[in-house]
């Protein structure tokens, strides 16, 4: 056998094995992925426009304010968390950034915004939350409010959170919190709540369906 042919066969062998490993990995991750997520719709015959959002006022970077008026004329994904959260919060915001990117490609992101609200105002200043949110997508808004206002707003929205000690580090604390994504329609009304785990394609198809119901 000629030398170039032998080299070609060897390279082909490497490519086939690498490809096989890739396909197998993709297959395994697909069969392990849950097939669907939970959602609650707030649009029905009784509430064709969703349910009114409670009045609220949050602080964003540079002394800015985010309140009910900022929910108008666009679709809003609301997610609650804290910046000391190393796993679930960056995972969710990263996936919302994917949704934003996908919809941008389809020219449907112009009327979409993401609001990340910190339930940890003791450690998260408005500037800190804003910088954190903007890291995932420059259009993401990060905000927080006084502990009392956060407690009232999350309570009214059914967003749960609770502080817990870190058993390894007395100076640190953890926060368990609802990982739901709330969807607010351009009329400023709450229309859906998506439960984790969140996957970009599922969020996109749910948003499409909710838009259809809303625009009907």
């Amino acid at each position, binding site marked *: *056998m000629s030398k170039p042919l*032998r080299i070609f*066969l*060897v390279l082909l*062998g*490497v490519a*086939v*094995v*690498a490809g096989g*490993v890739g396909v197998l990995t993709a297959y395994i991750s697909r069969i392990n992925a849950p097939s669907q997520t*939970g959602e609650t719709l707030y649009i029905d015959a009784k509430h064709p426009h969703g349910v009114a959002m409670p009045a609220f006022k949050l602080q964003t970077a540079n002394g800015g304010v985010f309140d009910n008026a900022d929910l108008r004329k666009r679709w809003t994904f609301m997610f609650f968390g804290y*910046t*000391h*959260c*190393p*796993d*679930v919060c*960056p*995972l969710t915001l*990263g*996936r919302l*950034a*994917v949704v934003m990117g996908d919809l941008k490609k389809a020219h449907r992101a112009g009327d979409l915004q993401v609001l990340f609200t910190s339930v940890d105002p003791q450690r998260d200043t408005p500037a*800190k939350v804003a*910088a*954190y949110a903007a*890291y*995932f997508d420059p259009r993401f808004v990060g905000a927080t409010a006084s502990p009392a206002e956060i407690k009232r707003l999350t309570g009214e929205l059914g967003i*749960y959170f609770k502080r*817990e000690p*870190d*058993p*390894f*580090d007395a100076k*640190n604390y*953890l926060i*368990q*919190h*609802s*990982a*739901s994504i709330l969807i607010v329609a351009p009329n400023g009304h709450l229309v859906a709540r998506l*439960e*984790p*785990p969140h996957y*970009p394609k599922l969020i996109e198809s749910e948003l499409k369906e909710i838009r259809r119901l809303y625009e009907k």
Partner: protein
Amino acid sequence: MVFKPVRRFFLISLFALLPVSAFAAGGLSADGAWIRQAPPGMKMLAGYLTVSNHGAKPRSVVAASSPAFGHIELHRSVIQNGVAKMIPQMSITIPAHGELHFAPGGYHLMLMKPKRAFKLGEMVPLTLRFANGQTITVQAVVKRGEM
């Protein structure tokens, strides 16, 4: 003569798979280690990897450390009734011939008190300690995060 290229095919294929396993000792290996880059100024990062136990006995990870972090904890994110919780783990057992996946939304290394900022693509050493005192060290690449 006919078999030679075939044999070489298998040999080369085997070598192609080798880099997948970054470290192997005492029946344990770890691979695919990465650290999610933290947004600016954040003091809490997460690290992920897969640990394989090639032995016939279960093994337990009990701690992690790195010269780049002041403190590392073993955690597991769980979602119960829509609520995300981080549950600190004193020890995580890897069954015989089993794998432990540290992955987003599940087991993770909570990397606290970073001693500096990390650049994308940078390699950072992470050391896992097992119940018998054995340690393994891997190089974790800093990434923006699986999305």
